[in-house]
């Protein structure tokens, strides 16, 4: 059992968790916006399938997601092998792997929120922008994107919070390498698996909760400003 406030390893886990949650949100945002856009504005045949696919990580157990990631991104996987061969990038066992697993798990949450944000954007404004000479992409960047920011923020927050707690996919895909891939949940898990580790587990869970709380609070503040900024305040 750990005594004292935070061991060096735990401090590292806290730091890694924050960094992983943040990075996973950052890497998800772009694809999430794209997918949300396809789901809301797209009129292509596979739309429903894409929607289902996005929900996949929510539906199957996290361990299975981790296992699937390992199959795909492992050194012999259909993505991992060329990645290593051509770019010398090896994901597994790195904190990038943790980020990837976390991002995949948070993806449905972030897409759902971004989608709601996009649905609230008035298409009339986009049409107006086009008649003013802005092309599709220009309109997207200068009108749609800023107006869906609240949705993006909401998505980022929930994905960040969920990212702080991501466990199954991470331990399966990225393994538990202290200082590299051992995030807070992994540390908590380790503690719960040790006879008498309850106190440590509870303490770490408390830290995890406090971090998520901080994130939520920050988001609430930003959301208020944003609403005012968008003229909905």
């Amino acid at each position, binding site marked *: 059992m750990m005594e004292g406030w935070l061991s060096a390893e735990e401090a590292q886990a806290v730091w890694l968790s924050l960094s992983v949650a943040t990075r996973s949100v950052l890497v998800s945002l772009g694809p999430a916006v794209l997918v949300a856009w396809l789901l809301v504005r797209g009129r292509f045949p596979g739309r429903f399938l894409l929607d289902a696919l996005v929900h996949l990580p929510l539906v199957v157990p996290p361990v299975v997601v981790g296992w699937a990631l390992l199959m795909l991104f492992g050194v012999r996987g259909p993505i991992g092998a060329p990645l290593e061969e051509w770019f010398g990038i090896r994901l597994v066992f790195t904190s990038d792997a943790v980020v990837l697993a976390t991002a995949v798990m948070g993806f449905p949450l972030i897409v759902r929120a971004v989608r709601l944000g996009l649905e609230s954007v*008035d298409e*009339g*404004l986009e*049409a*107006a*922008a*086009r*008649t*003013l*000479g*802005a*092309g*599709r992409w*220009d309109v997207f960047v*200068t*009108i749609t994107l*800023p*107006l869906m920011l609240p949705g993006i923020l909401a998505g980022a927050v929930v994905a960040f919070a969920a990212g702080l707690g991501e466990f199954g996919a991470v331990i399966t895909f990225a393994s538990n390498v202290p200082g590299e891939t051992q995030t807070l949940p992994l540390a908590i898990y380790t503690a719960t698996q040790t006879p008498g580790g309850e106190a440590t587990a509870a303490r770490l869970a408390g830290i995890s909760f406090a971090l998520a709380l901080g994130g939520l609070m920050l988001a609430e503040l930003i959301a208020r400003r944003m609403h005012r*900024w*968008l*003229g*909905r*305040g």
Partner: protein
Amino acid sequence: MLEVRLRHRFPGFALDAGFTAGPGVTALFGPSGCGKSTILAAIAGLFRPDEGRVTLAGEALLDTATRRFLPPERRRCAVVFQEGRLFPHLSVEGNLRYGLRRAPAGADGPGFEVVVDLLGLGGLLARRPRALSGGEKQRVALGRALLSRPRLLLMDEPLAALDAPRRAEILPFLARLRDMEGPPILYVTHALEEVDALADALVLLEAGRVLAQGSPDELSLRPDLPLAARRDAGAVLTCTVAAHDPARGLTRLAFPGGTLEVPLRREAPGARLRIRLRARDIAVARTRPEGVSIHNILPCRLVAITPSAQHPDEVLLRLRVGEAVLLSRVLRDAVARLELREGDEVFALLKAVALDHAPG
């Protein structure tokens, strides 16, 4: 020169309209649901009709026959929407500059300061759209459209969402715009007041079809058109300001056939203006009445007596004054009582104050 020819079917509604619009303001006028917004959207490139061709100054913007569909951003037809559609996340200045920044380098048009001055936006530049009143919003929308240096300005009932005082606040800005030698304007409305104040040409629509196209003066005299049934129906006279008489509080307007005395106006002598003389405000007399407060007593010839389709007890009298034609709405009974016949010489009586106060 804008040439439009569109065909489209919605469930329960068929559009089949063709018209042309020259320089100045062409008003599209018709009841709710007659297809005005759909036409505008098709011209702007926001809607793709089943069939049709739209050319602007000879260039085809849309031609379903050759499968040509220029995207909206390359048509340079700016739209002023009924609801303004200002970008909520940009300041007024950001909104105004949005189109300006994207206008082709060579495009000609009024500069930022000119438009800000014209529309009285100086004090609003730093504000967000939500902090604007309805009228201010529409002025900004107008400025934004104008600054995108459009080759054609489309306006979809820009004043409909505003109440009367707000409307009166904006109308003069629109009039100034029209007099500025800017791009041609296609102006959708169902307010005759706006047609009178702005339109050089009028396209009357009903249920997706063009009923008539022509000058407002001409169309407003046609009893077969639905215009004649309106409470504010009447003749539109194009006049010139002949002289002001501030002492008496009067302005004299000349029209081809006589003069009108109206409450003092602001326009300089020589200015052209259009005045709607509502049929319901015009009475007729067999002899010139004496000692009445009524200022305008115009000798004229009764050229036609048309029953009013809507009100069986009323008739429209068509009165010729010189080259001009006035309409008077009276009860059938008055025709009997005065034994009016087509061809009679009569006097048209019109109170000066019955004319609307000039906007601006």
